[in-house]
C-alpha cells in the first residue's frame, strides 16, 4: 500500500483482468469507525454495515459501480483504492521504446491545483500540460478534444433518434460518458440499454483515435504507444479495462490514473507545479472548445450537445451559447428548449444515482417526456468525482473529533468484552 494524496492505494491489476470481478474500492476494517457516512452516500447499497460492530464493507462487485463517493466522503480515510497504475506509468515514462500519451479529462484541471495550494476551481489546464511534458509524456493529447468529438457523435445520434426513433434506438437517449452510470444501467436497468447512447465516452474515443488517427498523423508505431487516461474518477479504471474497448487493434486505454495519482506523480518528480508556465496541448488530438470543458460538471454535456443540436435542427446559428436552463449542481433539472423550425426539445439533467433512478423508472414505465437525459453518478458531476483531490473539510474528523470517537469506541469495545 502507498499513500497518494491522502488515499491509500494498492498495486496494479493484470491488464486482461475482468473488471467486473472485483471492487475498485475497499474498506480497511482497522480504520473504519462504523460512522455510516459511506452507507449514506452510496446510492446503490453496495456498501453496508456488517457484523456486530457495524463496520462497513463493500458487499459484492456486482452491486458496486466504483464511483468512489464512499472514499472521498469517509472522514477517517478508511477506504482505499484496490488498483493503482502509477508504478507502471513511471516505468513506461523511463522506457526509451515506449511513447507515452497523456489523456486528461476536463474535470481534472479544476481540482488538480488544490493539491498544490491553489484555490478550488482554479483552471490549471496549461500548468497540467506543462507538468505532463516535464514528466516525459511525448504526446500531450487531451480528452477535451474528444469531448468535442463526443458531441459530434452523440449529438448526431440524438438527432437521428429524434427524426427516426426505433425499437433498438428509442427515445429518450441517455448520455454514456459516465462509467458509474453505464455500469448502473447494465446491472440495475438492463432493459434501458437501448436508450444509452452508443457513443463511447470521450476517453473511449481518445484511446482508439490515438492509436489509429494519432499514430498515422504523427508517424508513430501504435504498438509502441502507451495511453494514460487521467481521470477525476475511479470508475474510469473499470471502463479502461473493459475487454471490448480495443477497436484500434490494441488496448485503447493502457492504464487509468486519477487526479490524485497525477498530483502524487508531479510531487514525486519534484516539479514546481505552481510556478510552471502554461503550455498548450499538442495538435491533432489536443485542441478543444468551451463546450468540451463543461463536460466536467453536471449539465455540461447537455449544454454542449444543445449547442450543436440547436444549429443542426434549426438550420440557424445559436447566438447566445449560455444555455443556463440546464445548469445545475444537484438533484434533477429539466428544461424545454425552443428550437426554431423544429419545436421543443425536452431535456433532463441529473446527478446522483438516487436521482437517476427516478428518471429511469419513468422511462421504464413509458412515461418519460424527454428527448435527451444526461446522468452523472457523482453529485455535481465529475468535478466532484471519486478520483478528485480530497476535500480537506471531510477529513477534519481525522484530527479533531475522531479522537473522541476512537475513545468512545474503545470504551464500548471494553464494555462489550466485560
Amino acid at each position, binding site marked *: 500500500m502507498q499513500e497518494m494524496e491522502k488515499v491509500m492505494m494498492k498495486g496494479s491489476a493484470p491488464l486482461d483482468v475482468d473488471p*467486473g470481478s472485483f471492487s475498485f474500492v475497499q474498506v480497511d476494517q482497522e480504520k473504519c469507525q462504523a460512522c455510516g457516512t459511506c452507507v449514506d452516500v452510496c446510492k446503490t447499497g453496495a456498501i453496508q454495515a456488517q457484523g456486530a460492530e457495524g463496520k462497513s464493507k463493500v458487499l459484492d462487485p456486482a452491486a458496486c459501480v466504483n464511483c468512489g463517493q464512499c472514499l472521498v466522503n469517509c472522514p477517517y480515510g478508511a477506504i482505499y483504492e484496490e488498483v493503482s497504475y502509477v508504478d507502471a506509468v513511471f516505468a513506461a515514462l523511463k522506457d526509451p521504446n515506449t511513447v507515452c500519451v497523456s489523456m486528461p479529462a476536463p474535470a481534472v484541471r479544476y481540482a488538480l491545483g488544490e493539491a498544490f495550494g491553489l484555490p478550488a476551481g482554479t483552471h490549471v489546464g496549461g500548468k497540467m500540460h506543462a507538468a505532463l511534458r516535464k514528466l516525459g509524456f511525448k504526446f500531450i493529447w487531451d480528452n477535451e478534444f474528444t469531448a468535442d468529438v463526443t458531441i459530434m457523435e452523440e449529438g448526431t445520434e440524438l438527432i437521428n433518434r429524434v427524426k427516426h426513433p426505433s425499437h433498438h434506438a428509442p427515445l429518450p437517449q441517455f448520455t454514456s460518458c459516465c462509467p458509474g452510470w453505464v455500469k448502473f444501467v447494465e446491472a440495475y436497468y438492463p432493459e434501458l440499454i437501448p436508450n444509452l447512447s452508443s457513443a463511447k465516452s470521450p476517453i473511449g474515443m481518445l484511446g482508439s483515435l490515438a492509436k489509429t488517427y494519432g499514430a498515422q498523423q504523427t508517424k508513430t508505431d501504435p504498438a509502441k504507444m502507451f495511453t494514460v487516461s487521467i481521470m477525476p474518477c475511479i470508475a474510469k479504471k473499470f471502463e479502461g479495462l473493459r475487454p471490448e474497448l480495443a477497436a484500434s487493434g490494441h488496448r485503447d486505454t493502457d492504464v487509468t490514473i486519477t487526479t490524485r495519482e497525477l498530483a502524487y506523480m508531479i510531487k514525486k518528480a519534484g516539479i514546481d507545479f505552481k510556478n510552471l508556465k502554461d503550455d498548450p496541448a499538442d495538435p491533432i488530438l489536443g*485542441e478543444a472548445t468551451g463546450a468540451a470543458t463543461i463536460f466536467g460538471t453536471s449539465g455540461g454535456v447537455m449544454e454542449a450537445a444543445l449547442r450543436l443540436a440547436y444549429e443542426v435542427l434549426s438550420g440557424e446559428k445559436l447566438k447566445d451559447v449560455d444555455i443556463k436552463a440546464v445548469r445545475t449542481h444537484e438533484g434533477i433539472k429539466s428544461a424545454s428548449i425552443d428550437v426554431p423550425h423544429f419545436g421543443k426539445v425536452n431535456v433532463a439533467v441529473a446527478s446522483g444515482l438516487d436521482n437517476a433512478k427516478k428518471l429511469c423508472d419513468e422511462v421504464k414505465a413509458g412515461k418519460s417526456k424527454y428527448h435527451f437525459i444526461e446522468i452523472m453518478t457523482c453529485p455535481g458531476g465529475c468535478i466532484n468525482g471519486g478520483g478528485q483531490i480530497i476535500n480537506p473539510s471531510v477529513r477534519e474528523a481525522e484530527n479533531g473529533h475522531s479522537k473522541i470517537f476512537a475513545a468512545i469506541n474503545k470504551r464500548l469495545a471494553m464494555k462489550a468484552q466485560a
Partner: protein
Amino acid sequence: MSEQMNCTRRDFLKVAGAAVVVAAVAGAAPTLVTEAHAAELDLVSQRQSGVYAADANPKLYNLRKSQDNPMVQKLYAKGGFLGDGPCGHVSHELLHTHYVDRSAALKALKAKGIKLKA
C-alpha cells in the same frame, strides 16, 4: 442498561457525533464547525464556477461550440479520417460501442436476501 448495549456502534456514534457537533457549536469554537461544513458544501460550487468561467474566457477557450473546433472539422472533412461524417462507418467501428447486461449477478445477490437501494 441491556437496551443500551443492544444499540450498534454505528447508531451510538451517530448520536455521539451529533452531540459533539452541537457541543462545539454551542461551546467555545462555533466558527470551526460551521466553516468546515460550509467548505464542504462550497467545494462543488467553487469547482463548477471555475468550469463556467473558463468556458466564457476567450483566453482559455476562444471557441465555444464543438462543431467550430478546427481539429474536429479536419477530422470529419471530406477525404479525412472520418470523412463519412459523425455516426458514419469508421465512427461506428472506432467511436461507438455496445453494452453488457450485468443483471444476472445482481439478481443472484438479491436472491441471497441482500437488500440494495436500487
